[in-house]
């Protein structure tokens, strides 16, 4: 399209006769064409001539008063306030009341929904927490049931460990299920370990010179503790068991020879 084409559209647009598509094309073109913007402004001025032909007619005085009252209420020139005044003026009182009531009810409903949602979210979190607790208890129950059945099994051998030089009064009882290569060890009268220390159970093997870690544990305040050892070596390969106090988390080999509990299998 040429500038003349756009100018022709601008002529129609000035009297509101351009089509929607023509208006769009013109708007896009005017964004980049100063000459056609000038033409658009000139046509706007020319269109106003149609309105200026008529003899002016003074509006009734109360129209002036109403308009001045509306704009004077807007001291700060706040557009929103003026719009508000305008809309309030135009809105019947019953409609304004109904609108306010509707908004209040709507707001109350929204608050209610939010509270319900929050309550539901909180209840779901509590359910999840309780479910996790139930799962942990079930796991513990399974372990205890397994330990009980292992202990009660006729094939389980019981071994007594005695206190060593570091804790002479301590003791431990080992339930060794050779068939399943599993052991349950219960300790008594162990001194409470410091927070930065852990007890570590070692398997003294007949076929190896170095002890093998069988697990890390903490003693309770009353000196008790329990450890379940899975995947034990064959019974013939186990010479004895011993416990040392190690840095928190234990190590690959004992860091000292101060045994708390020990005994041969």
């Amino acid at each position: 399209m040429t500038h003349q084409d756009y100018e022709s559209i601008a002529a129609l647009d000035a009297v509101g006769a351009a089509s929607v598509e023509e208006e769009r094309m013109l708007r896009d073109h005017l964004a980049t064409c100063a000459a056609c913007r000038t033409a658009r402004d000139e046509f706007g001025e020319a269109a106003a001539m149609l309105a200026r032909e008529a003899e002016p007619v003074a509006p009734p005085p109360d129209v002036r008063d109403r308009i001045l009252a509306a704009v004077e209420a807007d001291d700060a020139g706040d557009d929103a306030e003026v719009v508000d005044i305008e809309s309030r003026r135009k809105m019947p009182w019953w409609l304004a009341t109904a609108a306010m009531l509707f908004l209040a009810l709507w707001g109350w409903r929204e608050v209610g929904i939010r509270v319900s949602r929050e309550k539901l979210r909180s209840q779901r979190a509590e359910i999840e927490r309780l479910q996790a607790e139930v799962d942990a208890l079930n796991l513990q129950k399974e372990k205890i049931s397994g330990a009980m059945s292992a202990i009660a099994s006729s094939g389980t051998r019981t071994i007594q460990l005695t206190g060593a030089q570091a804790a002479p009064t301590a003791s431990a009882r080992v339930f060794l299920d050779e068939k399943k290569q599993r052991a349950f060890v219960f300790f008594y009268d162990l001194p409470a370990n410091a927070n930065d220390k852990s007890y570590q159970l070692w398997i003294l093997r007949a076929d190896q010179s170095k002890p093998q870690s069988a697990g890390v544990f903490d003693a309770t305040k009353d000196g008790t503790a329990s450890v379940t050892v899975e995947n034990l070596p064959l019974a013939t390969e186990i010479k004895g068991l011993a416990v040392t106090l190690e840095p928190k988390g234990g190590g690959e080999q004992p860091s000292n020879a101060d045994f708390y509990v020990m005994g041969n299998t």
Partner: protein
Amino acid sequence: MPMTDTVPPPALLPAVARGDIASFEALFDRYSGTLYALLLRILGNPEDAQEVLQETFVKVWTNAKMFDAVRGSEVAWLISIARSRGIDKLRSRRIRVDRENDAGREISIHSSFVEKTTGADEAIRSEERIAVRGALAELPEAQRVALELAYFEGLSQSEIAERLGEPLGTVKTRMQLGMKKLRDRLRAFQP
């Protein structure tokens, strides 16, 4: 040849944009008659015209800062707002004023409210009106009718073509030619 040598009055909108109530009152006094006459012609009854006039001036008060003197005159800006609101009102109420039937009422409205103000402003506006009428009088009747149907009744191109029983292309050409003539005449007496 210039249509008038009269110097236009100073623009009031810049002061209105700064929140000057006195300037706003002066603006109302200067242009409300022109705008009210326009709205009476568009809407056909005083009640609607007064309501839209009020909306127009409230909008002018809030949007005065958007007036750009480079783009056009103060009166043209005010007229564009009033006309736009008037056409919106007309369309919303689906009023299509029959010009022939309403002509008598329109005249009676004019005669009952004709502005009696005097002074420099009125003298200037009278001269402008004479010039405008002269320019419009030079338009061929067909062009003028097509433009008035668009401007005062808010009809689309196709609605005007249907109303006049003319091809759409013919109607568009008439309106374009008419607007270009008006613009050329306007250029002759613009400051």
